[in-house]
């Protein structure tokens, strides 16, 4: 196990190194940041001076070396716009995104598990057909459209829920969270449901397919011959056996949720990392874009690592080597 962990950590570092290369070089082809920073009235001499000051006159590989050296020291550069470290800016926004993603995951699981198991155990039941039809809608509808629809109905027409912002926050461990206040909780509902929809629909379909597969197995019939009740049959015997592929997809989905939060955050003006990214792209704030991509890549890699660990907890036959 220890050997496996060490191997995996090296793999993760290699992946992140590759990501840093791609991100850095792709970003350096996207326009000249110096022109974005200097005042519009700047003379050519001033522009050249700024270029030297930012180190952008150096060859690309020298720039990369500096970038990598700073990265290893945890320095992802200073935002051109905010004049503050990019990392600090992103970390400040991170709780908002994470809480949004967390609630989306919670909603997805709370709905997808019972629905998926039911539809898998009784595929011919009319309710299962409704669930499956609904999940197809959930997969097909894009989240930006759904978000606008929700705002239109729940916020504009009915006035039930707020449509933008994060509302009041309360601090927990020194970090501000919205869901801790009533107002903040009301703010999180619409964006979280919007964000959850795609993942939820996909999980339902996957869980259903897996449960259907498992229900055909002999050990399910054997458990029934033991006198096991339907509830235990489904949730103790069948679900766990259906879970390995579900966990894989779920892990990827968490990453996707963090990334897709960008769209949802923009629609609901949710002050998270994704909104910061979109704003930074609009202002060509390169250090923030690079820092965001590096952080999201690191999260992705870490989540997938956790998924592999979770496998062994689910299935004793899986041996990590």
């Amino acid at each position, binding site marked *: 196990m220890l050997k496996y962990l060490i191997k995996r950590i090296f793999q993760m570092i290699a992946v992140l190194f590759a990501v840093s290369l791609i991100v850095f070089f792709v970003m350096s082809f996207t326009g000249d940041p110096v022109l974005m920073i200097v005042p519009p009235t700047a003379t050519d001499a001033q522009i050249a001076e700024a270029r030297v000051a930012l180190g952008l006159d150096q060859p690309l590989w020298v720039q990369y070396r500096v970038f990598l050296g700073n990265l290893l020291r945890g320095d992802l550069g200073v935002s051109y716009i905010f004049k503050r470290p990019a990392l600090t800016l992103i970390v400040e926004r991170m709780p908002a995104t994470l809480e949004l993603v967390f609630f989306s995951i919670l909603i997805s699981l709370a709905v997808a598990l019972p629905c998926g198991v039911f539809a898998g155990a009784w595929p011919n039941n009319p309710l299962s057909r409704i669930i499956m039809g609904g999940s197809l809608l959930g997969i097909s509808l894009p989240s930006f459209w759904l978000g606008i629809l929700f705002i239109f109905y729940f916020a504009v027409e009915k006035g039930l829920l707020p449509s933008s912002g994060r509302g009041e926050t309360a601090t927990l461990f020194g970090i501000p969270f919205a869901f801790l206040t009533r107002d903040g909780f009301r703010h999180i509902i619409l964006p979280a449901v919007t964000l959850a929809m795609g993942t939820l629909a996909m999980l339902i379909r996957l869980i259903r397919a897996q449960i259907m597969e498992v229900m055909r197995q*002999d*050990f399910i*019939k*054997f458990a*029934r*011959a*033991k*006198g096991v009740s339907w509830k235990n049959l489904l949730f103790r015997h069948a679900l766990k*056996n259906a879970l390995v592929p579900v966990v894989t997809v779920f892990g990827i989905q968490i990453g996707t949720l963090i990334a897709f939060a960008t769209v949802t955050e923009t629609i609901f003006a949710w002050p998270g990392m994704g909104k910061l990214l979109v704003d930074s792209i609009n202002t060509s704030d390169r250090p923030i874009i690079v820092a965001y991509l590096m952080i999201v890549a690191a999260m992705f890699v870490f989540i997938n690592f956790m998924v592999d660990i979770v496998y062994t907890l*689910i299935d004793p036959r899986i041996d990590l080597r």
Partner: protein
Amino acid sequence: MAEYLLEVKNLKTCFELFRGTVKAVDGVDFTLKEGEILGIVGESGGGKSVTGFSLLGLIDLPGRISGGEVFFRGEDLLKKSEEEMRRIRGKEISMIFQDPMTSLNPLQTIGSQIDEMLALHTDLSSAERKQRILDLLTEVGIPNPADRINNYPHQFSGGMRQRVVIAIALAVNPRLIIADEPTTALDVTVQAQILKLMENLVHKFGSALILITHDLAVVSEMTHRVAVMYCGKIVEEGPTKDLIANPHHPYTKGLLESIPKMAGARTPRLPQISGMVPSLFDLPKGCSFAPRCSRATERCLQDVPEMRLLSPGRKAACYHPAGMAEEGEGHE
């Protein structure tokens, strides 16, 4: 109290499939006394397993039990609700499946799979259950049960897994065990051990046993009585020794003749039953076996023979039974 532990009367189970209705079990009658071992033999697709599952009410759609009665200790199981049946399954009637590789949950330790049975059907405390699990594992011949209790099925060999399955089946002292081809998936060397084990334990626990198999050799070793099934019907039934020594139904005779014999003169070819098992979608009009039977006459192709008493304790469904005192006696 009823005379028999189990009395099956005219049991019918059919599957309504897209191509038509299949009568997998078509009017089966048999009885079983306390502690008795009954063998049900026949080729694949003869309805043996479906009979076993029907007794426990474990027939899933598109199949359904379409008629008959199954009296277990005087009560008709087919009239019971799902919840009542759930309490009978495992506790009163338990089952051993064909393939031990697939009949255990791969993600639960064998200890917890035995424990599940005890927790469902007994009031034992968890410490008592633990002791009972250890006793059961010892009983079925698992070495070092205390070490093995937390192992997963994939850490056991096929024979060992079947021992675990047997331990589960016996866990709460059921009155009846239905074993569906319990040794078919095992190595020949292990088969005999498992059969011997089952025979001993069934005696020791005082359970009755229905042994479903296609292997007449297995049947002849350990059963008291045999019922031979062909195309969803029982075609011959009787005490094992008699029936093997002197089969009346041509199908039983054919089955017995097709077992290779180690002793005696070698026959140039192994006798076999000619033809194939007819499709259950399209059974012949008269006796299902008639198209493959050397003794068949015009009548066999027209009418379905009923089970009738041919000699004391011996029944067969045939108009022209073999092995009677003098040939032709079978005609009424």
